[in-house]
């Protein structure tokens, strides 16, 4: 069992406490006044206990990586603009296919990514899965590169680079800017 570092523990506890504040609605009543002291203390105790158990699953490399404000701003921009645009295009496309205006030709293709960090790889995989029309099925590593196997509802090509360009779009560039 890997030993838990203190920095990993601390950042996990902070994230848990922010989540507690959001989910109990206390963050609204802090600004308007009248936050209950009991709820704040209970959240602190619970998030410390949770962080003790789960820090070694949550943090694998540098602990305070995302607390950099510039990186966080790029992240929010990616989620709100770039990713939303891809999501809208893919949603309309799959909706047209569902109503029968377009044909489907499904297939499983293999694409390659150049991202190195684990978080970046899993974020790209989740972005690909979240756009309708593509689902990441597995991640494999071979001779120094990382490959995704992707089920694609419109497999127009099975070449490794053309399919990669079609599926990833501009997302990979922005994810590299966030994590590397």
């Amino acid at each position, binding site marked *: 069992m890997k030993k838990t570092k203190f920095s990993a523990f601390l950042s996990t506890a902070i994230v848990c406490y922010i*989540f507690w504040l*959001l*989910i109990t*609605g206390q*963050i*609204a*009543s802090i*600004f*308007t006044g009248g936050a209950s002291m009991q709820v704040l203390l209970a959240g602190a105790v619970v998030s410390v206990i949770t962080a003790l158990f789960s820090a070694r699953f949550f943090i694998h490399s540098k602990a305070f990586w995302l607390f950099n404000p510039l990186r966080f701003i790029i992240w929010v921009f990616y989620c709100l603009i770039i990713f939303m645009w891809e*999501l*809208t295009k893919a*949603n309309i496309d*799959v*909706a047209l*296919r*569902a*109503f*029968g205006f377009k044909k*489907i*030709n*499904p*297939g*499983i*293709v*293999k694409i390659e990514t150049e991202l190195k960090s684990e978080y970046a790889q899993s974020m790209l*995989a*989740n*972005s690909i*899965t*979240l*756009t*309708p*029309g*593509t*689902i*990441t*099925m*597995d991640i*494999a590593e071979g001779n120094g590169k990382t490959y995704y*196997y992707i*089920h694609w*509802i419109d*497999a127009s090509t*099975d070449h490794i680079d053309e399919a990669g360009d079609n599926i990833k779009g501009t997302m990979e560039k922005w994810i590299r800017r966030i994590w590397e």
Partner: protein
Amino acid sequence: MIYAIYVLIGLSVLFALAGVVGMLRFPDSFCRMQSSTNISTFGVLGVILGGVLWSIFVFDTPDWAMAVKLLVMGVFYIITSPIAGHAIAKAAYKKGVRPEKEMVCDKYGEDLENAD
């Protein structure tokens, strides 16, 4: 403002309808999975956005706690739905679910056979 919210929620119903029709029409399991992604992205986001706007602008006193809770729910849906989709897709392929008609290409099956 109220009519803008109605348009948002109506769009969400439209995309959910597209997802449901796709899940009933598509021929094999993986394509149905794609269509269910349609439900869990835009079918959710329209309602969440409309709910946030509604709880801030339409109520007599703005209900900030409800708005924040709705936003957290939206983020939760966005985070968890790809994880579940990925897990089920991999398990389905390993379990031996295959499409009825031929796929265009199947790199995953070829590589799995080569590895064995």
